[in-house]
């Protein structure tokens, strides 16, 4: 039996945001693959639950008239990986969430939870940062949109206010068109493991030169991050080994890895540098470009 003290199964988005507003200790439960584990461990912060599992509208994946791809906050990782719109327009999101846990966890876990719980290692976070995903959030005062850039506030913390409910992610066409993107999760095991380092790259190439690089990491700083210095160092440079070497060096200025029982700071830095070149190479390959 989980030590739940208050439980409300929301019947609509309006009902959910009202229930969240009424109780300052209320927390959202989606797939339960994090919240129920915290409860199992006896955590005090998750005892008042607003359950959004009946809100099928939040499970949808669709495309809007302007080409934006939208992923409901409650869509499971498996639903995201298997969805043709994801595979066609934003495949790196599918590739990233395919590395979460194992099949059973992916059948329940959601991208909404993966981003909103603020995990430093969130597999979907790198891909979301590279696509500069919009988060469509609702509370009793209405709806607003925030970018995932700047959404992470610290380890386990995000810029959600009391009473906020994330409804869906929106990836606008300017954030996926003509972009090659790849993700690599470096972990000790190939399944049921947390990333030691996660890295995603989004790449635009014009006439053999990098017109834009978007480089993101997890577990390399107190939050998932984008790498401003490395991205600047890449801009306008030819897509070759020398440039990749420069990016791999410059990225050291963007990251702040630390030592934990999983890996030392020095080893993490080595993985960070190595992955920069590897993941950009894979991203280039996705748009038919090769490293000279």
């Amino acid at each position, binding site marked *: 039996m989980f030590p739940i003290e208050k439980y409300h199964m929301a019947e609509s988005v309006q009902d959910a945001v009202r229930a969240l507003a009424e109780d300052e200790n209320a927390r959202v439960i989606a797939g*339960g693959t994090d919240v129920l584990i915290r409860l*199992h461990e006896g955590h005090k912060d998750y005892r008042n639950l607003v359950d959004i599992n009946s809100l099928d509208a939040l499970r949808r994946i669709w495309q809007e008239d302007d080409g934006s791809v939208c992923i409901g906050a409650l869509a499971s990782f498996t639903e995201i990986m298997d969805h043709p719109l994801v595979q066609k327009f934003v495949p790196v999101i599918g590739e990233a969430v395919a590395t979460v846990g*194992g099949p*059973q966890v992916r059948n329940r876990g959601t991208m909404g939870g993966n981003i909103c719980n603020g995990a430093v290692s969130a597999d979907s976070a790198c891909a979301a940062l590279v696509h500069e995903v919009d988060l469509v959030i609702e509370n009793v005062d209405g709806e607003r949109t925030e970018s995932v850039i700047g959404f992470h506030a610290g380890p386990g913390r995000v810029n959600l206010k009391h009473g906020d409910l994330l409804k869906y992610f929106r990836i606008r066409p300017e954030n996926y068109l003509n972009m090659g993107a790849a993700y690599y999760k470096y972990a000790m095991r190939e399944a*049921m493991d947390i990333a030691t380092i996660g890295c995603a790259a989004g790449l635009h190439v014009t006439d053999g030169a990098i017109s834009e690089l978007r480089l993101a990491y997890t577990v390399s700083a107190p939050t998932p991050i984008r790498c401003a210095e490395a991205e600047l160092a890449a801009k306008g440079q030819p897509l070759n080994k020398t440039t990749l070497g420069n990016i791999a060096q410059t990225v050291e200025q963007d990251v702040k890895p630390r030592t934990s029982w999983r890996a030392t700071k020095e080893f993490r830095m080595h993985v960070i540098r190595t992955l920069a070149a590897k993941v950009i190479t894979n991203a280039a390959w996705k748009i038919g470009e090769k490293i000279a």
Partner: protein
Amino acid sequence: MKRAITMTVNNRKLALDIDVRSSLLDILREQGLTSVKQGCGVGECGACTVLVDDIPVDSCIYLAAWADGKNVRTVEGECRHGKLSPVQQAYVEAGAVQCGFCTPGLVMTTTSFLERNKGKKLSREEIRVGHAGNLCRCTGYETIVRAVELAAKKQNEE
């Protein structure tokens, strides 16, 4: 914190008054379905795997309330008229069972995996990825992969 739910478990309709704090694992075991094992209790080992609307989930981290209106399958329902299911039979023939604690969960994962991949030629890598959420501390997995291959072969011959 009671809640009335109805679910179909192994083709049997159940109307239950559950405590919303219960996991699906708790409720199924209370119903006598003790094939559903609690291993880690945190969704890592897969011993509690059951199918909800044919999708494998860890029933230890699945609220019983979520099963309302759904179709739940456990290994008890796979055996028909005293005859093992093709997946169960393949586990026996491949010798994929040692202590047996992980077996009900694995059999349900394989059952769903093969239903989703009907007619497809499956690589060992695909089989391993498809079963990555179930831990087995006895077999070393080799015989389990062989059991899945055997069941897949039989399914594709039918």
